[in-house]
């Protein structure tokens, strides 16, 4: 029963973490905080994936070392999912960081909610410098 409680603590705390991260993305106006919250969200989802690949009866790494064979080790498919998801999250975070930097240079603010409310320039004649 102790292992059940321990595993439950891990799973429930990850779910609460996801909820906190979603709160951070939606409510916090600053772009930097949104990037941090998105990072927390994707990392927690990846961690949850590794948790879901855990075999309590044989918790060994998924390698071919002598003594291991079929059925002896944690799930390698989920770990492959996590590798791909982490690279994609990295590309996404870098994209957001670059756009935040550019937003700060052009609009002098990283506050997304404030920028959305601002009526930037008049709609009548817009200068499209191309």
């Amino acid at each position, binding site marked *: *029963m*102790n292992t*059940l*409680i321990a*595993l*439950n*603590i891990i*799973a*429930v*705390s990850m*779910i*609460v973490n996801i909820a*906190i991260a979603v709160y951070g993305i939606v409510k916090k106006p600053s772009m930097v905080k949104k990037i941090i919250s998105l990072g927390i969200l994707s990392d927690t989802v990846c961690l*949850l994936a590794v*948790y*879901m*690949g*855990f*075999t*309590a*009866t*044989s918790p060994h*790494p*998924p*390698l*071919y*070392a002598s003594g291991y*064979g*079929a*059925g*002896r*080790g*944690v*799930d*390698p*498919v*989920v*770990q*492959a999912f996590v*590798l*791909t998801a982490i*690279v*994609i999250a*990295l*590309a*996404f975070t*870098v*994209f957001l*960081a*670059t756009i935040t*930097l*550019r937003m*700060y*240079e*052009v609009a*002098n603010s990283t506050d997304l909610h404030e920028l959305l409310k601002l009526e930037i320039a008049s709609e009548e004649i817009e200068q499209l410098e191309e």
Partner: protein
Amino acid sequence: MRSRRRELGIALLIVAGITALSALLGLMGELAIPLTASKRLLKELVEELAYNPDNPYSAFAPAYVSAVVWDFRGLDTLYETIVFIAATIFALNLYHEYLGEAELSRHRLSVILQSTAKIQIVMATAVSASLVARGHITPGGGFQGGALLAAVVIAATTIYSLKSLVGRFIKHELILCLLGLATLLLLIASSKWAIVGFFTRAPGYILQNQAKPGSLHGFLFWDGEHWVSGSILVYDLIEYIVIACGLIVLLLVVIIGGYRERVI
């Protein structure tokens, strides 16, 4: 002070709630998210086929995760690399001119750091190379090695100042050329058997690693201890170059862009 205490109160409340909920679920004998990994057939199939000296169709990769990433589900990895390159291209669109002409920082850190960094940079580069070269036998692989190499380069620019490194040792054009060539190599490497098969009338699949029924091309070699799959090593090396070059370009863009005077 009040907001600190309020935050602390919320944090303690969350921790207490988690503990209570998990204890409750544990006492009822249930798991919040069920652990079903030991019953999964896909896992057993992977473990049976990833390294099986009796079966010539298996992937011959002692690290099962590398087999899944580059052989069984190689298409996912190919697309993930393309996603990463798309993010690099976005950064290039914004900042390509500034990479060459910007005013670079001359700030360098203390002499102690500079001397110890000489040892650490060499060691970290060696570790990254070993991660890549043994990526098909032990956990590791192209992405981890590339990320480590990029981190080493950026740490060096922090310690030795951007101005002394960028332009002399870190040439943007060279890194971008490497990125482009490595991407092309990745596409060629993944479809080589298909293209060869198209011309020689023997079928081959895209991202094929070892021989398959109906297509007898394979890429197997003996590395002294095991029979291992050669193409996973090739993919790891190409991924190493792509990720390292892409990350160096991206991080340099962010660092150089952050130092510049704000332009409106």
